[in-house]
């Protein structure tokens, strides 16, 4: 059990620095009262403050303190709560901070991270000179709305409440039960927020002849209810995350590395680059990887870069593969020596490379595609002759690579098979397609 303390305020830093009559005094006194009532261990409390006059608050508490950037306080609080769910993490933020960081606040509420937010809502920016904020009421005069505010004020508890906060309330510094409300908010699991309306005696009070009574009128006029507005029991995020996502496995067991120890031999005398030009959904990148892995099984080095549109399920899909008996430093493929043109989408993309092919190079063309002018030797592959497997678009690249490998013998087909066997789920079909590639007729 924690021992009861008389105060959580730090006598060395007091008094508060605020203007006479500023509502921030009241909020901090009531927060202190709430902490006293809760009897929390000060080493288990982190006060995360924002910017502005409200942001000066953390230094007066004898707890942990994090004074962060404008509007971002709730993001730091989230990181702390995620790392240490047992801590009480309290966010002190102004209406200005809520405005600039509102996006974080909505997401913290939606996430239902167990931090407790107290908004010092004085309807303007105190520290920078009384400019309007997201909560400045209609027609109010501020340093930047001398004509009267035209923008609708933001309803803070409603915005977090409608987005899933476990607890949302609104009150004023004149509420005799403020400390109890703050206690209730801190005790509530999940995201909680109390929007506390107050006076900025240096600016808003002067510019609008604002007072306790005018505040009450404004709330009524806006139809802004006070009291507890949302009270739910959704699961708190840092704990829910741990339950659902986290387990304590050993690093080395969790992620394994597939070793491709050379167990075959290659006759490739020097670097060779290939381009496999296909279409989305035709497993071009997978085929390129299996082909490269087969090469590595044969003692070669390989690199593979893929190109496809950002809308991955449409258009071309191209894999550039370099194989070499030596280490490959430069991974670009300017002038490939072998081009596989297997689908119209891919063919359209590699026109330039095909034009640049030399007589000793090779173009492997799907026989269904139109004739292409090239200096290179051309193999026209009739996939139809391989019946069932030849008709399936997702096996075309593996089959074309099989044909090429058997003819060129740059490395043994068994090495390609060994690479295919690395993924048991697809191995059977891929091996069958590779076998069927023997039936592909070449024109």
């Amino acid at each position, binding site marked *: 059990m924690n021992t009861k303390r008389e105060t959580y305020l730090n006598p060395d830093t007091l008094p508060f620095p605020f203007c006479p009559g500023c509502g921030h005094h009241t909020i901090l006194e009531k927060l202190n009262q709430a902490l006293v009532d809760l009897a929390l261990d000060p080493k288990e409390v982190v006060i995360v403050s924002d910017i502005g006059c409200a942001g000066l608050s953390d230094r007066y508490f004898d707890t942990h303190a994090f004074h962060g950037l404008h509007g971002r306080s709730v993001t730091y609080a989230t990181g702390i709560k995620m*790392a240490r769910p047992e801590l009480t993490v309290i966010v002190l933020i102004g209406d200005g901070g809520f405005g600039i960081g509102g996006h974080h606040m909505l997401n913290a509420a939606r996430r239902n991270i167990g931090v407790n937010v107290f908004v010092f809502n004085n309807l303007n920016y105190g520290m920078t000179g009384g400019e309007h904020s997201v909560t400045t009421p209609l027609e109010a005069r501020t340093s930047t709305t001398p004509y009267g505010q035209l923008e609708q004020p933001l309803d803070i508890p409603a915005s977090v409440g409608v987005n899933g906060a476990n607890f949302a309330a609104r009150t004023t510094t004149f509420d005799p039960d403020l400390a109890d409300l703050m206690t209730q908010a801190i005790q509530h699991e999940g995201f909680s927020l109390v929007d506390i309306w107050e006076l900025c005696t240096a600016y808003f009070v002067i510019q609008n002849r604002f007072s306790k009574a005018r505040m009450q009128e404004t709330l009524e006029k806006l139809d802004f209810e006070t009291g507890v507005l949302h009270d739910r029991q959704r699961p708190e995020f840092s704990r829910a995350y741990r339950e659902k996502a986290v387990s304590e496995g050993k690093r080395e067991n969790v992620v394994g590395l597939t070793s491709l120890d050379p167990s075959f031999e290659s006759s490739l005398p020097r670097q060779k680059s290939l381009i496999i030009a296909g279409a989305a959904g035709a497993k071009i990148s997978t085929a390129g990887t299996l082909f490269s892995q087969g090469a590595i099984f044969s003692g070669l080095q390989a690199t593979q870069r893929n190109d496809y549109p950002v809308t991955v399920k449409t258009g071309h899909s191209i894999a550039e593969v370099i194989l070499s008996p030596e280490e490959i430093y430069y991974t670009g493929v300017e002038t490939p020596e072998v081009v596989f043109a297997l689908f119209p989408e891919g063919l359209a993309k590699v026109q330039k490379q095909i034009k640049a092919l030399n007589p000793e190079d090779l173009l492997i063309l799907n026989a269904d595609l139109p004739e292409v002018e090239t200096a290179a030797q051309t193999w026209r592959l009739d996939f139809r002759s391989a019946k069932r497997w030849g008709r399936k678009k997702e096996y075309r690249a593996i089959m074309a690579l099989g044909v090429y490998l058997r003819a060129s013998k740059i490395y043994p087909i068994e090495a390609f098979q060994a690479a295919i066997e690395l993924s048991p789920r697809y191995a059977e079909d891929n091996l069958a397609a590779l076998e069927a590639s023997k039936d592909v007729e070449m024109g």
Partner: protein
Amino acid sequence: MPQFMDGNRAIALGAIDAGCDFYAGYPITPATGILLHLAGHLPKTGGLVLQGEDEIASMGFCIGAAMSGRRVMTATSGPGISLYSENIGLAIMGEVPLVIVDVQRMGPATGAATTGAQGDIQFLRWGTSGGYPVIVLAPTTVEECYTLTIKAFDLAERFRVPVFLATDKETALTKTTTHIEREHTPRVRDRKTAETESEFVPLGIEELDEVPAMTPFGGPHKLRFTTSSHDEHGYLTKDPQALDRLNRHLAAKIEAHTDEIAMLDVDADQGSETAVLSYGISARSAKAAVGKARRSGKKATLITVYSLWPVPEDAIREALKGVKRIIVPELNLGQYTREIQRLATNDQEVIGIYRVDGKLITPEEIIEQGGVL
């Protein structure tokens, strides 16, 4: 035991093996792979992975978690680094150990998402207000993505500073044959932590270049962390002496240790008057070019810089002794060339070779434009 993988996967693996136990990030090409790999694996090792609502939040989560005792990383690309800016400043101010991966893509702005570049090299160093130093490492291979990620964690913990790993689309997404030997007891030094018994002073240092001990939120001491210029107890101050001390400390703890941080590889060719100096993906082209030149009987020294910031000035000057011509290939319009220019002596000519068309610099370009042959 060769493997076949890309740089993003190697970075994720490096983070896991470095004992990273908190990651937050926001999806962006070409860095998304790191988030995906870690989202799939890190929580299985007790780690936490969060997708923030944006890059600002992701950095906020990371900083909060790091100060609560976690070993943290985030990864993004240029547009995300732009959003990280204010929190990079906070991490410098609050001395937060933090690894930030920048998988560079072509900028400015959205630029070309799937096109590589090395355009953030100065931005990473000067990307927040104040001008205080950070550490930037640049791997050239997939294997180095693994080893330098671990090194980045080590330096972050050692110096309590954001350490950037500057890669690029090409390194991140091109699969290559790798020979990664996993480090199951990685060489990451633990952060210096305040002893439970003694009094804790947030900026408790005797020498300016010393790194103060940490204590986590929820730990044995009450921690004061602040975005504001502060005195040794972590309280906002305007006292000129305290401000001077803080700011000089933030610079000295990195700059006075440049030699300790320095990482470069010098493949010297005795009596060579030409040096090719590069980093990251362009260093691979440089290596190929130098190999080619040597095979045809020419002399050329190859210098690969892994620790871009702080600039390893003494080590670079030393490596360039006797050289007349320094060729600097990079995928921007001369960002690191300007650092080399200021280190070069009057009789050394610096030739930058730049490409900003999304293509890699070819070894032939280096040989021809640099006059290596």
